[in-house]
């Protein structure tokens, strides 16, 4: 960053005097509304939720919140099987989805990094799944998973397999959601990796080619290590969002059947807005927030250490 004073406070002012205040304090006035909005509407709510997590309170009851200390946290961790189930499912869902997307996304990026006709159009088409309205594409998948007239069962029948009930099957419901998430976000990983590929230096490849390395060795010993920071960015962003997946799970299974696809985000939604158990769900959210932060910190650390 340059050392020149950013917004020169003593710019020649040739305006009416009441503007002098504006002018001198531009560097404070310009960001002021944004700072106020952020403090009032983002920082304060999180602090409030943290405070609420120490209370016992149903928003549906006329009685006010009662301070209960760490009771909510203790109850969640030691007694609530639904919470521990949701916790494990959130981790499983995120690991499977992000893992699949990362591997497929890197593979696709290597394909699309080659020059071929129509590459630009193909790349643009890949943007659509991640940008398209999540609930709309979730509804399409819900229709395709339909046991009686869904397309996937038709495809199964073509290869002579018995039909499946897909998202209504407790043992595979979560996997079905991993497929939807991967369909949506593999292209994002691909795009991030492509951006990384286009910025790679050429020297290592030239010297490796002179040393007689084959293309698999080039990929494994040069391309992937050089891409590491880029891949970690993709994994970081995908993990943060996958942990919080809501729309597709809510639309396709609502956490069911039974609790087979209930993740932390869905469970906290149900606690907060179906049971109106505000104190309890706030404690749940604090643990959830800590989980997302913890995962992010791990990936940010991983980015800096060499392979």
């Amino acid at each position, binding site marked *: 960053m340059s050392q*020149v004073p*950013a*917004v*020169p406070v003593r*710019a*020649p002012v040739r305006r009416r005097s009441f503007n002098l205040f504006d*002018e001198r304090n*531009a560097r404070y006035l*310009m960001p002021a*509304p*944004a700072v106020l*909005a*952020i403090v009032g509407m*983002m920082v*304060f709510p*999180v602090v409030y*939720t943290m405070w609420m997590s120490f209370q016992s309170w149903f928003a549906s009851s006329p009685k006010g919140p009662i301070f209960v200390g760490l009771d909510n946290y203790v109850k969640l961790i030691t007694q609530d099987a639904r919470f521990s189930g949701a916790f494990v499912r959130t981790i499983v869902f995120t690991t499977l989805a992000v893992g699949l997307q990362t591997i497929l996304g890197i593979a696709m990026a*290597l*394909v699309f*990094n*080659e020059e071929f006709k129509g590459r630009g159009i*193909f*790349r*643009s088409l*890949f943007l*659509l799944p991640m*940008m*398209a*309205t*999540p*609930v*709309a*594409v979730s*509804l*399409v*998948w819900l*229709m395709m998973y339909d046991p*009686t*007239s869904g*397309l996937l069962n*038709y495809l199964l029948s073509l290869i002579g397999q018995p039909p499946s009930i897909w998202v209504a099957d407790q043992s595979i419901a979560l996997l079905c959601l991993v497929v939807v998430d991967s369909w949506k976000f593999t292209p994002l990983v691909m*795009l*991030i990796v492509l951006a990384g590929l286009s910025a*790679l230096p050429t020297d290592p*490849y030239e010297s490796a*080619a002179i040393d007689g390395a084959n*293309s698999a060795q*080039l990929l494994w010993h040069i391309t992937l290590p050089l891409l590491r920071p880029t891949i970690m960015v993709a994994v970081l962003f995908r993990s*943060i969002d996958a942990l919080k997946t809501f*729309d597709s799970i*809510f*639309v396709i299974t609502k956490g069911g059947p039974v609790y087979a696809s209930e993740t*932390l*985000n869905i469970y906290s939604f149900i606690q*907060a*807005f179906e049971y109106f158990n505000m104190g309890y769900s*706030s404690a749940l*959210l604090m643990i959830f927030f800590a989980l997302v*932060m913890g995962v*992010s910190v791990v990936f940010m650390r991983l980015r800096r250490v060499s392979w």
Partner: protein
Amino acid sequence: MSSAKLAAGRGKGAGWGLRLGLGYAGVVLLILVVMFPFLWLLQMSFKPDMLIFAWPPVLTFEPTMKHYTDLQGGQFQKSFANSGIISVTSTALSLLIGVPASYVLSRARLGSKGTIALWILATRMAPPIAFTIPFFLAYRQLEWIDTLQGMVLIYMTFNLSLVIWMMRTFFDSIPRVLEEAALIDGASVWGTFRRVILPLSAPGLGATAIFAFLFSWNDFFYALILTRTKAMTAPVAVVNFMNYEGWEWGKIAAGGTMVMLPVVMFSLVVRNYLVRGLTAGAVKG
């Protein structure tokens, strides 16, 4: 140059044409898998009711506009208009207060820009419900539940960090010499910002605006909690079809297609900025 390209260059010879053909077939297959849900939704929205549940699925039929005309005049049309009003207004407001803040962030000698990047990341990490509980309770007091202004306020807030971050990278790329020249010529700080900096960052402003619009338009979560009927947005309306008229696949498909139409158009406009927008807050280096 990439490893793949080097490898391809070396392999040029006998099997090259075949490899190219196979490569193209693979790419086309991939595109088909990616595009398939969209195409399926589109054909469903034009399919006559009696063929929708046909087994095996029918792909040749006389298209009907019935499902689209069914959407007219009902809750969906109103919700669609709500979505438009809410998204446009919240985008305009978040630009209005986010862009000046972003400019100062880009120009000021702040000790640690990394801290701000981390803060933006942190707002992404927080589960949306953690923000929503206080909003819900406050709106209940203010009687702002199911109002347009309530939705505008919440989307404006959540687009702020995106606007600040995206615009900062655009402002960073404008050389300081330009505004220094303007200031020496006697322009004010505000005047320089309005007449020199903003016109130069027009493409960035456009891309940022489209992103903010798309995030508000696509949102389901906040609208699900904070609206009922009057201010209901289009994504919630479409999901309601599924909940209350689950057999009307044609209507659901038509609604889904309508919701996605602006998204598809705008996404193609901003395709070059997409990675930047979706990874706002990525710490460089």
